[in-house]
C-alpha cells in the first residue's frame, strides 16, 4: 500500500536510469542518511540513550562502517566480477602500512646509486588515498594470475598474497619505521587543519568516506565497467565473444576492489585502532570479509552493509545478552554459546536463503509492493 510505485511516471531517460527509480526508496534513503549524518551525532552530543556512553559509537558503529566499506570492495571483486579472493586482509594491510609510511615520511636510501628518495610526511587525507592506490597496484599485480586460473585455484593464489604481505609487514622493519615491538602508531588525524579525535568526529569521517565510496561503487557497477564485470562473472567465454576484454575487465575489478579495501584498511588502522600490528590484518580478517559478502549477498552494495552488520554486530549482541539479563554465566560459557548460536544462524540463513540478505530484501520488496493484497 505504502510501497507502490503506481503513478510515478518516468518521462526522461535520466529518470528511468536513476540509482533509486522508486520514490519511496529515495525517501527511505534520505531518512536513513538524515539519521546517520544528523541524528546520531546529535544524540551522541547530548548523550541521549542509547548514546549515553561512547560504546555504541566506538565499538559498534565505527568498526561497522569501516568493515562495510571493505566489504563493498570485496563485493566488487567477488560479487560482481566473480573472482574469489582470500587476500582482502592483505590489501587492507597494504593500505594501512602505505598510508602509515606516507603519513610519517618515506626515506629510501639507495646507497648503490649514491642518493636517497625522501618524501616528507604527507597530510592524512592524501596518505589514506595513496594508501588505497598502493593497494590497487598490488591488487593488479596479484590479479594477473586470474587471467589464467579460475575459481578455487585463484582463491589459493590470492591466499599467497595474504601470507606474503603478512610476512612482509612482520619481518621487514622498514615498513614499521624500525619500531622495536613491530607495533606502529597512526599519525595525528588532521583534516584541513581540523583535528579528528572524538568518537563523533571519527564516526562522521568514516561516514563521509563510506557514503562517497558507496555512491561511486554503485554507479560503477551500474555502468559500462560493472556490466563487463558481471558478464565475465556469468560466463567468461561468452563475454569474450561479445567483445569484452577479460584482461581489462578482471584487472579493473582487482584495482577498484583493492583500492576500496586499501582505503578501508587505512581507516581501520588510523581511525579505529590507532596503533596496530600485522595480526590486525590476518587471514581471519580476509575470511571475515568474505563471509560478510556471502551472507550479505554477492553482487549487492546494500548486501555489503547488511552482511557487515550481521558478521560484526551479531556476535557482540549475543555476547552482551546474558550479562544484560543478569544470567549468571561465566564468560567462557557465554563465548561458547555465542559461537554455537552464531554458527547455527549462519547455517539456517544459508539453507533458507542461499543468496544472502540482499535476496531476502528484494523478496521483501516484491511482497511489499503487493501488500496487503497478495495478487
Amino acid at each position, binding site marked *: 500500500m505504502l510501497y507502490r510505485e503506481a503513478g510515478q511516471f518516468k518521462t526522461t531517460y535520466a529518470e528511468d536510469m536513476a540509482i533509486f527509480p522508486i520514490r519511496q526508496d529515495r525517501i527511505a534513503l534520505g531518512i536513513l542518511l538524515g539519521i546517520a549524518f544528523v541524528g546520531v551525532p546529535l544524540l551522541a552530543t547530548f548523550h541521549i540513550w542509547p548514546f549515553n*556512553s*561512547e*560504546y555504541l559509537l*566506538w*565499538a559498534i558503529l565505527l*568498526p561497522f562502517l569501516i568493515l562495510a566499506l571493505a566489504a563493498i570492495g570485496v563485493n566488487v571483486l567477488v560479487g560482481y566480477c566473480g573472482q574469489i579472493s582470500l587476500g582482502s586482509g592483505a590489501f587492507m594491510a597494504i593500505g594501512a602500512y602505505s598510508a602509515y609510511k606516507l603519513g*610519517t615520511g618515506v626515506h629510501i636510501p639507495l646507497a648503490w646509486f649514491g642518493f636517497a628518495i625522501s618524501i616528507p610526511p604527507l597530510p592524512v587525507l592524501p596518505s589514506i588515498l595513496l594508501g588505497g592506490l598502493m593497494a590497487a597496484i598490488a591488487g593488479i599485480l596479484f590479479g594477473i594470475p586470474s587471467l589464467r586460473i579460475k575459481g578455487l585455484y585463484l582463491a589459493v593464489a590470492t591466499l599467497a598474497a595474504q601470507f606474503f604481505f603478512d610476512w612482509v609487514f*612482520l*619481518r621487514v622493519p622498514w615498513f614499521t619505521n624500525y619500531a*622495536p*615491538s*613491530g*607495533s606502529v*602508531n597512526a*599519525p*595525528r588525524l588532521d583534516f584541513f587543519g581540523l583535528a579528528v*579525535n572524538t568518537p563523533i568526529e571519527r564516526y562522521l569521517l568514516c561516514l563521509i568516506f563510506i557514503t562517497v565510496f558507496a555512491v561511486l561503487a554503485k554507479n560503477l557497477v551500474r555502468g559500462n565497467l560493472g556490466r563487463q564485470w558481471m558478464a565475465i562473472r556469468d560466463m567468461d567465454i561468452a563475454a569474450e565473444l561479445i567483445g569484452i576484454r577479460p584482461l581489462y575487465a578482471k584487472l579493473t575489478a582487482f584495482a577498484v576492489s583493492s583500492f576500496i579495501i586499501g582505503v578501508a584498511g587505512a581507516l581501520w588502522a588510523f581511525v*579505529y*585502532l*590507532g*596503533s*596496530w*600490528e600485522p*595480526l*590486525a590484518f*590476518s587471514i581471519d580478517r580476509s575470511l571475515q570479509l568474505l563471509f560478510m559478502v556471502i551472507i550479505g549477498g554477492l553482487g549487492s552494495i546494500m548486501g555489503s552493509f547488511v552482511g557487515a552488520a550481521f558478521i560484526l554486530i551479531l556476535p*557482540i549482541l549475543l*555476547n*552482551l*545478552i546474558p*550479562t*544484560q*539479563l*543478569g544470567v549468571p554465566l*561465566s*564468560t*567462557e560459557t*557465554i*563465548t*561458547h554459546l555465542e559461537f554455537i548460536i552464531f554458527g547455527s544462524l549462519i547455517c539456517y540463513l544459508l539453507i533458507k536463503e542461499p543468496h544472502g540478505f540482499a535476496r531476502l530484501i528484494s523478496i521483501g520488496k516484491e511482497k511489499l509492493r503487493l501488500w496487503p493484497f497478495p495478487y
Partner: protein
Amino acid sequence: MVRNKLILAAAMLSSAALAAPAAAQNEQFIPILSYRTGAYAVNGVPYANGVADYYSLINERDGGINGVKLLVEECETGYATDKGVECYERLKGKGPTGAAFINPLSTGITFALTEKTTTDKIPIITMGYGRADSKNGAVFAYNFPLLGTYWSAADIAIQHIAKEVGGFDKLKGKKISLLYHDSPYGKEPIPMLQVLAKKYGFEFTPIPVTHPGVEQKSQWLAIRQNRPDYVLVWGWGVMNGTAVKEAAAVAYPRDKMIGVWWSGAEPDVTPAGDQAVGYKSLMLQHGAGKFLVHADIEKYVYARDKGASEPGKVGEVLYNRGMVNAMLGVEAIRKAQEKFGKKPLTGEQVRWGLENLNLSDARIKELGFEGMLKPIRISCSDHEGARDGRVQQWDGKGWKVISDWYTANQSETEPLVEEVSGKYAAEKNVKPRDCSKES
C-alpha cells in the same frame, strides 16, 4: 500460539534488559579483561581465576576496600586486539565512577589502548608485560608496567646465564638465541638483547614463531644446526609446551632453555611430561605455592563456594600472578582513598594512588604475600616499581627455585627507555611531565 509465546518471551527478555539492576552508589568498578577460550586459554584461565578470587576475597573478608565494595565484570578477549578494544569500550564507563584501572593481559591490546586510556584518564596496569618504554612515567602517565618490563627480564636472563657460565667475561663468543612469539609481546626484548650482545660480545639470534605457535619444526631445525649455548623462550599459550616438546625432539638440552616469566607455568611443562624436566624459566618475583593469603582465600572464598578455580589449582604460578596483580590494583585504590576519601574513585584518582604506591616488607607481610614479593615503590619517573627476579627449574613435579634474587641493571635498561619513550613523545606530541614537581 508458538509465535505468540515467542513474542511474549521476547517482550519479557527486553523488559528485563531495560530493568537492569541499578548500580549501588558505594561500589568501585573494576573490569577484568580475560581469555578463557582460544589458543591462549591454557594460560589465560588460571590467571583470570587468580584475579577474580582476590577481588572476591576483598569483598568477602573485608567487605570491600574501606567499605567500598568491588564490582567486577569479566569480558572475554580471546587474546585478540580488536576484541580487547571492544571489551575496553564496553566496560570503561560502568559503575558509579567508571573503571578504576584496566589490565588487558596482552601486549598487543596494551599498545592499542595506550592512547585511549590516556584520553579517558584510566590507568592501564601491565604487570610484567606491556610496553617496556612505558616505565618512563613522565611520558606514559597512565601506563604502569609494574614489577618488571621485558627489558628488565632480558637483563635478568643474561645475568643468570653469565652466572651459569662463570662470569660476564665468559659470555664472549657464546651463542644465545631468542625463540619468540612473533607479536609485540615477543619482539619487545629484542632491542635490549641486542644492546647486551654488543656489550658482552655474545652472538644473538632472534628466531620468530608465528601465532599461535604450534608449528615450530623449522625453528628447531635451525637451532639444531646453529647449536646455540642458550635458548631464551618468549612464548605464550600453546607455544610454550610446543617449544619444550620440539626441543626434546631435536635433543636440545632443556636446562639450556630459559623461558621468560610468561613461559614458566604448570600448563607450559606438564603436557611435555618427562621431556620438560630441567626446563628453566624466570620468575616475576613470586613462584608457585601457597602462602598466608591462600589460607584466607580458602577460608573466605572457597569455603563459601565463591571460588572461580578448581581448588586443586589454587597456588599455581599464573593463579598467583593473577592474585598479585589484583592485589596491587586494590592497594593502589586504597592509597588513592587516603587522599581522595573513602568513596568510589575515578581512574584519574586511582592513577595517583598507583604512582604513589609504596609497599614495604611489613605491609606485604600484613597482606599475606610474604615470600612472594619484595618491596615495591612506584614513582613518577619509575612506573615499574621493582625489577627483581629469580630463576626456577621444573623437576617433573613442581617448580624449584634455583637462584638468588637478581635485580635488572638500570644502567643498561635506562638509556633505551629514555630513547624509545622520547621517540614516542615526539611522535605523539606528548609533553613529558616534570617528575620533580609531582607529588
